[in-house]
């Protein structure tokens, strides 16, 4: 600690650190001591309970009161001194409180939801580890550690998506999530390196505060000027693109969004916490952290991409049949709203929407979890072969699961953004500001708010479709399989309590005392970049038009799905197919990117196999050939000489041996022969 802080502040910092470290402690205890014990769930839950209480205390002390930034010397390398520390300002304490408060009901819910799973303890290890990484991510004060926890968050998400690693689809999904997040991480890392090169510091507070390093740097004549450092302006663009890639991968924005629907392979409680409420919001949080870096043109690009993502995801959600997939696409759509809000300068409203979205989307996922759980029970009790997540099988669950129905209804209405819910406050804020922004920028930009409004009506339609298909009408399973028995209910208090808590958080009083005016939320005033609204005509028109049309759309959905008096979309139309196949983006990636990468790998494999291996094999063959020659020389020349001399000796010996064969007559004969030879020779010589 580099300067003396008042006692109160030191205590606050300690509370914040404890709030971050407690889930990690739970992870360590679970990992080292508890093994497969059922106690691990409660250890994690208690840790997150204490953590959330501490976070709320920290939140009340810091929010709108002061900014606390403590740092400690980490290491010195060359001329660069690196500090590590925590930065508690409005943004980080908001996220700190949000993450821990959302995580608490999810933990309680999980103790019941996962109780029959073989990986119960492993689940809570991962969950605690995720909470630690996420909480640390939001309070870190330098980009290096931010990046480290950014990676850890992605890693724990990877672990939890592939939690049921014996399912091939889950393994595919977590691989996909991991690879796509890698693309974003590379972007973020590049951006961090460029920023360090430009400003020689990783300190977030120094870089991004009002009047900080980034605010005081300028772009002039194609040069990016900050202090004494001059670099070509293209680096600034690359840094922004890098950060955008990081945001797009984590928050599932358009080119990199395809991992999120597949990530629904994880347990539903995980989808609620990580892939709806907290981790995917990390991208938007990062945008909030580095907001001053973006200039006007880059922000407009962000807005366009966000808006397009919101629209595209909403159209896809219209036709999906998988309960969780619908919710996943609605998450992508809402994240698109947040990014768009960042782009149009509605910084505070974007984060406001992040908070409200976290509550209602978590609620929706937990309700969906109960529904899926119950359908699974029916499936197992009656030995049916059905997909428990398919909404075509459901229907009429309103009476069987009354609390779940009410919770889903509240969450759904908040998602549509109808008055009296928290979603209304944030979403109308975004829409109103989008219209104001477009009016300010020019008529061509009007497309954006209009598209956002259309998205809002599409949202109304698919939420209505979801609720009507799941909770109204008759149970389709009963008509398909008349004989089955159904014993289902909302479940115990560990299911009910989180739903009630989150439902309360989805209503307006938590955020604003005036249920109809989005400008009066306390949350908006706490975020620094908040600009007051100009009292324009849009303030009144937009909410009214959007909501009335939303209601009309919902009634339309009611007519289609319940009364079935009109049958509009033939299920073979072009638009239906585009929507149902998710705009063919996955297929496009498979056809182009994956095939390209596979072809490239095949090529390198071929190169490896044929050229490198061929070269090695050639060397081997040459070696074998030389060794063959040596062996031939050894065998036939060296050994040959030896064998030849041995053979000569043997031949001589064999020849000499014949005279000693023990046959008396032979001796006599040879003696006679010798005598005759001597005589013949004598005669020959004589003559």
């Amino acid at each position, binding site marked *: 600690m580099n300067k003396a802080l008042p006692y109160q502040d030191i205590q606050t910092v300690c509370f914040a650190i404890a709030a971050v470290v407690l889930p990690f402690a739970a992870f360590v205890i679970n990992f080292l001591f508890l093994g497969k014990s059922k106690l691990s769930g409660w250890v994690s839950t208690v840790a997150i309970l204490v953590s959330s209480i501490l976070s709320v205390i920290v939140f009340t002390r810091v929010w709108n009161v002061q900014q606390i930034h403590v740092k400690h010397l980490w290491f010195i390398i060359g001329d660069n001194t690196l500090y590590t520390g925590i930065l508690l300002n409005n943004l980080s304490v908001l996220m700190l409180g949000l993450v821990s408060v959302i995580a608490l009901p999810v933990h309680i819910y999980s103790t019941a939801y996962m109780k029959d799973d073989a990986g119960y303890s492993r689940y809570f290890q991962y969950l605690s580890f995720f909470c630690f990484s996420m909480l640390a991510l939001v309070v870190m004060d330098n980009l290096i550690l931010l990046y480290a926890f950014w990676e850890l968050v992605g890693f724990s998400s990877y672990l939890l998506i592939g939690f049921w690693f014996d399912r091939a689809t889950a393994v595919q999904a977590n691989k996909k999530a991991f690879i796509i997040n890698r693309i974003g991480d590379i972007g973020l890392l590049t951006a961090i390196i460029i920023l360090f090169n430009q400003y020689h510091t990783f300190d977030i507070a120094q870089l991004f505060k009002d009047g900080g390093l980034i605010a005081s740097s300028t772009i002039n004549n194609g040069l990016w000027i900050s202090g004494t450092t001059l670099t070509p302006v293209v680096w600034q663009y690359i840094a922004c693109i890098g950060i955008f890639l990081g945001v797009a991968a984590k928050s599932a924005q358009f080119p990199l969004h395809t991992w999120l629907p597949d990530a629904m392979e994880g347990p539903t409680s995980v989808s609620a916490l990580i892939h709806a409420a907290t981790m995917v919001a990390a991208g938007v949080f990062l945008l909030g952290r580095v907001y001053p870096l973006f200039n006007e043109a880059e922000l407009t690009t962000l807005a366009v991409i966000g808006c397009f993502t919101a629209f595209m995801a909403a159209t896809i959600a219209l036709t999906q049949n998988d309960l969780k997939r619908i919710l996943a696409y609605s998450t992508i759509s809402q994240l698109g709203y947040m990014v768009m809000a960042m782009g149009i300068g509605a910084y505070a409203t974007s984060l406001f929407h992040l908070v409200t979205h976290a509550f209602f989307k978590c609620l929706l996922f937990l309700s969906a979890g109960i529904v899926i759980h119950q359908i699974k029970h029916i499936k197992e009790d009656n030995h049916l072969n059905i997909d428990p997540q398919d909404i075509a099988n459901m229907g009429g669950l309103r009476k069987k699961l009354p609390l779940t129905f009410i919770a889903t209804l509240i969450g759904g209405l908040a998602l549509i953004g109808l008055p009296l819910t928290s979603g209304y406050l944030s979403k109308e804020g975004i829409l109103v500001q989008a219209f104001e922004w477009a009016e300010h920028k020019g008529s061509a930009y009007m497309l954006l708010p209009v598209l956002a409004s259309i998205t809002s009506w599409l949202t109304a339609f698919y939420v209505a479709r979801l609720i009507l298909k799941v909770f109204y009408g008759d149970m389709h399973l009963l008509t398909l399989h008349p004989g089955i028995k159904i014993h289902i209910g909302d479940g115990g208090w560990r299911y009910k309590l989180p739903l009630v808590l989150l439902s309360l958080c989805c209503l307006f009083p938590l955020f604003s005392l005036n249920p109809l005016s989005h400008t009066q939320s306390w949350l908006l005033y706490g975020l620094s970049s908040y600009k007051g609204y100009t009292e324009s005509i849009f303030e009144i028109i937009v909410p009214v038009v959007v909501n009335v049309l939303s209601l009309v759309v919902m009634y339309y959905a009611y007519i289609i799905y319940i009364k079935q008096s009109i049958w509009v979309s033939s299920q073979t139309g072009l638009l239906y197919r585009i929507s149902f196949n998710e705009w063919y983006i996955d297929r496009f990636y498979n056809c182009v990117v994956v095939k390209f990468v596979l072809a490239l790998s095949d090529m390198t494999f071929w190169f490896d196999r044929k050229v490198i291996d061929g070269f090695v094999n050639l060397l081997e063959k040459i070696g074998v050939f030389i060794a063959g020659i040596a062996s031939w020389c050894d065998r036939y020349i060296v050994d040959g000489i030896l064998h030849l001399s041995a053979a000569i000796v043997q031949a001589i010996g064999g020849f000499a041996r014949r005279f000693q064969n*023990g046959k008396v*007559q032979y001796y006599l004969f040879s003696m*006679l022969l010798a005598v005759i030879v001597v005589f013949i020779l004598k005669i020959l010589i004589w003559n």
Partner: protein
Amino acid sequence: MITLTDFMIVSAVLFCTGMFVIISKKNSIQILIGIELMLNAAILNLVAFGKYDRINNSGQMFALFAIVLAAATTAVALAIILNVYKQYKTIDPDKIKQLKD
């Protein structure tokens, strides 16, 4: 007139016959007979050359001694062959190789 040459020829034929018998036969008794033939060829020569000695009939005398000695050696040889037969159950000299190698 029977000349010395005729005796020598008869003697040489006898000697060669004996030699052939010794080399070719596979029976020790026959080999012994071959030896006797050769010995007789030598005795025949002794008698034939004895005609030219200054002392009369000395050749015949020595021939008689030689015949007696030959009978004695034959007896000894037969005794040996008997013993060999006892030992090896054969009198084929090719098969008696216990001393060999």
